[in-house]
């Protein structure tokens, strides 16, 4: 059975005038790395909140359908039970950092403290997680003294350290430099290889194509198209609906009109583009 199951999910915030998510049905296997793309306002963050249980437990509002993770229904769990299985890194790291801790090390330990992990184990887990995401040198800094990209790494690390079975990431690299972005994709891929299920909202199409197993394109609260990265990310539907596409795809589409791209399939990655333009 799929690890994550969404059945006819529909949702509306208390303040919204219409449905923010509608008719979402989806299955995700354990260890799968799924990326969600979509224009602003498509419902990507709301879908993250639904997976993490914040919708509806925290935001209230009206929900119908089901969110199921590992055979348990979100509607029948409390948020604190849910948080043991599912971790969410927020789009804006500033909204996630606790404000209760003086150092990055303590900030990352915060979640483990709350679930009563013994001190020695906690220390080791925090150190391991910081080394994994490459922020060991920030351990003694104040979370508020960091740059945006560094804060994002801290926010990601403080979720990874909890070892959730479902990791939900809302634009985790939006403020990162390109190398940092690639590293985060690499870390997330590694987590997936080790069996963690990952749902990641992202705009950076080139890296999605290189690392994710599947792409789901959301538009106006509904699934527009889903499938393998190279199929979804080269689809004409994306351009027609205001999605960002990679410069390789865009250049090859134009080149095709001028007879300079002869392959049937359009490229998403650098390697695909090089291969296609060489032939």
């Amino acid at each position, binding site marked *: 059975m799929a690890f994550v199951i969404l059945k006819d999910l529909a949702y509306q915030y208390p*303040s919204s005038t219409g449905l923010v998510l509608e008719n979402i049905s989806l299955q995700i296997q354990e260890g799968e790395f799924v990326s969600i793309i*979509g*224009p*602003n*306002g498509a419902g990507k963050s709301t879908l993250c909140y639904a997976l993490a249980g914040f919708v509806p437990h925290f935001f209230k509002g009206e929900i119908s359908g089901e969110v199921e993770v590992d055979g348990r229904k979100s509607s029948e769990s409390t948020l604190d039970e849910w948080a043991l299985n599912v971790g969410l890194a927020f*789009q*804006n790291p*500033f909204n996630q950092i606790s404000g209760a801790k003086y150092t990055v090390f303590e900030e990352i330990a915060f979640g483990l403290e709350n679930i009563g992990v013994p001190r020695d184990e906690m220390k080791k887990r925090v150190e391991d997680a910081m080394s994994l995401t490459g922020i060991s040198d920030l351990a003694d*800094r104040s979370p508020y*003294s*960091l*740059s*945006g*990209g*560094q804060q994002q790494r801290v926010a990601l690390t403080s979720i990874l350290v909890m070892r959730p079975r479902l990791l939900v990431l809302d*634009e985790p690299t*939006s*403020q*990162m*430099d*390109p*190398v*940092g*972005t*690639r590293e985060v994709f690499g870390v997330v891929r590694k987590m997936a290889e080790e069996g963690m299920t990952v749902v990641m909202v992202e*705009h950076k199409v*080139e890296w999605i194509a290189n690392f994710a197993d599947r792409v789901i394109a959301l538009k106006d609260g509904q699934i527009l198209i889903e499938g393998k990265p190279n199929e979804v990310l080269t689809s004409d539907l994306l351009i027609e609906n*205001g*999605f*960002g*596409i*990679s*410069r*390789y795809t*865009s*250049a090859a589409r*134009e*080149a095709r009109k*001028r007879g*300079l791209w002869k392959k049937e399939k359009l490229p998403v990655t*650098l390697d695909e*583009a*090089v291969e296609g*333009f*060489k032939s």
Partner: protein
Amino acid sequence: MKIIINNLHFTYPTGLEALKGISLTINPGEQVAIVGQNGAGKTTLVRHFNGLLKPTSGAISIGEWETTKYSTAKLASRVGYVFQNPDEQLFSRDVLAEVSFGPRNLGYEKSKADELVKRAMALTELNDKAETNPYDLSPTWRKMVALASIIAMDTPIIIFDEPTTGQDAVNVARIANVIAELKREGRTVVTITHDIDFCAENFERIIALAKGQVLLDGLARDVLGQGEILAQTYVEPPQLTRLGKRLGLKETITKQDQFLNAIARD
């Protein structure tokens, strides 16, 4: 209005030495992008432009004003600064009040202020949101409100700190339009960005910072062609630049049209 930075050093009270001797001149009407790894000192540098930070040593002047001699409030008439996170700068009850605050505060006459607000709102496509509370808008539109509220101040210099973060393709195009319009008006635009493709398509000059120093400074195609040096500050050349290189094209590619012309010739 010229920006002249002379051997600028800055050390935070924590002892972190963020800028280690930066010298730069930015000419009136230039469109400059600043790139570099997280923690390279990009934000620290531009926070000196409007006096939010003052040099530990060295100097920076905006026109003939040396920033140590003027308050940030005063410098705000010359340098507008759009924060990375719009939530750090928005506070008014509705969008119109937010966008009007800056020009009113700078003491423009009412008719002039109204005109500036109107133009800024039109440019950022906010006209239908004038009466909305900024916090009822999505983060995308809050970003546009932040942009509008600074543009309306009509400063000769505008700083954008990561304007495209978290924005979709439609909105990135909108922001590119805003920058192009500011260029037509002759204003200086200094933008911090990690979006190197956006950078290649919209800026003439690129400054790469690394560990508090200038690593590269020059025309976009000269800077972006130096992949190995850029790697020192964790910047990868744009997608089409990398593609051009892999295909063995002689020129450094920065834009799609240029790429298509180059492969057509090849």
